[in-house]
């Protein structure tokens, strides 16, 4: 296991590369979900306002 983690001496370049990439993957999932739920909330508010005016 330690041998694997050392990556032939490249650990300090290799693991941060993987960390950055998977952080970007996770962030994009989070951002996409947040955008969708915000748009939904906004649309719901619009429906409410229109219902009040009707």
């Amino acid at each position, binding site marked *: 296991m330690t041998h694997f983690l050392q990556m032939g001496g490249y650990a300090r370049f290799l693991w941060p590369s*993987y960390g950055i990439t998977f952080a970007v993957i996770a962030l994009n999932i989070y951002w996409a979900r947040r955008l969708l739920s915000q748009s939904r909330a906004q649309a*719901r508010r*619009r429906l409410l306002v229109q219902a009040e005016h009707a």
Partner: protein
Amino acid sequence: MAWTWFHRLGSPPYVYRLAARLTPWFAWPAALLILGGLYGGLVLAPADYQQGDGFRIIYVHAPSAWMSLMVYVTMASAAVGLIWRIKVAHAVAASCAPIGASFTAAALLTGMLWGRPMWGTYWEWDPRLTSELLLLFLYLGYIGLRSAFEDLQRADRTSAVLAIVGVVNVPIIHYSVTWWNSLHQAPSVMKLGKPEIATAMLVPLLMMLAGFTLYFGAVLLVRLRGEVLRRERSTAWIREALGA
């Protein structure tokens, strides 16, 4: 009519429902391919005879770089909706920008981390690195330009022009290593003819490339629903879409 499916893709309610249904079909295969690619790349693939285990950075660097270009081409193609004023096309273009920008940043950073042990430097003003950095600025410019407008329609139209003009940079990035004397290695997979890479190294890379592409599809579909909803004024289908 053969064109009905195309017209339906221009209809926001249809796209909203279709996107919701399609998302898992992209997300799950993407997760499996990326996990398989990780195992193949980190465990099964042999170390490179020149770069040792350091070459394994390729399994995150190359897919990130591929995303940076593929997402831009998708964004610029969707921006062509400018001509026909298709709302859904603009929603696609707007969805692409943050995804593309973040993966361009990942491609640059992982490239720097690869360059340090192999070239002895994090950064060099080399044609490939410089044109990729320019791509990041194009994405950031696009996002900045969008946010400068209160009105979504004007944001869509103005930013589309920037996206289309910036597409010139894409072939420059791709061919930079062939056109100029570059520190960056020449393409070993994305070229005509046989790939110049051993099968045990190539298969995980192809899995990662396919996995990232499907992942892009899944994230794009989720964002697209949000963007379509933001652009919609018709209350009837919003009520239906929200189940309200």
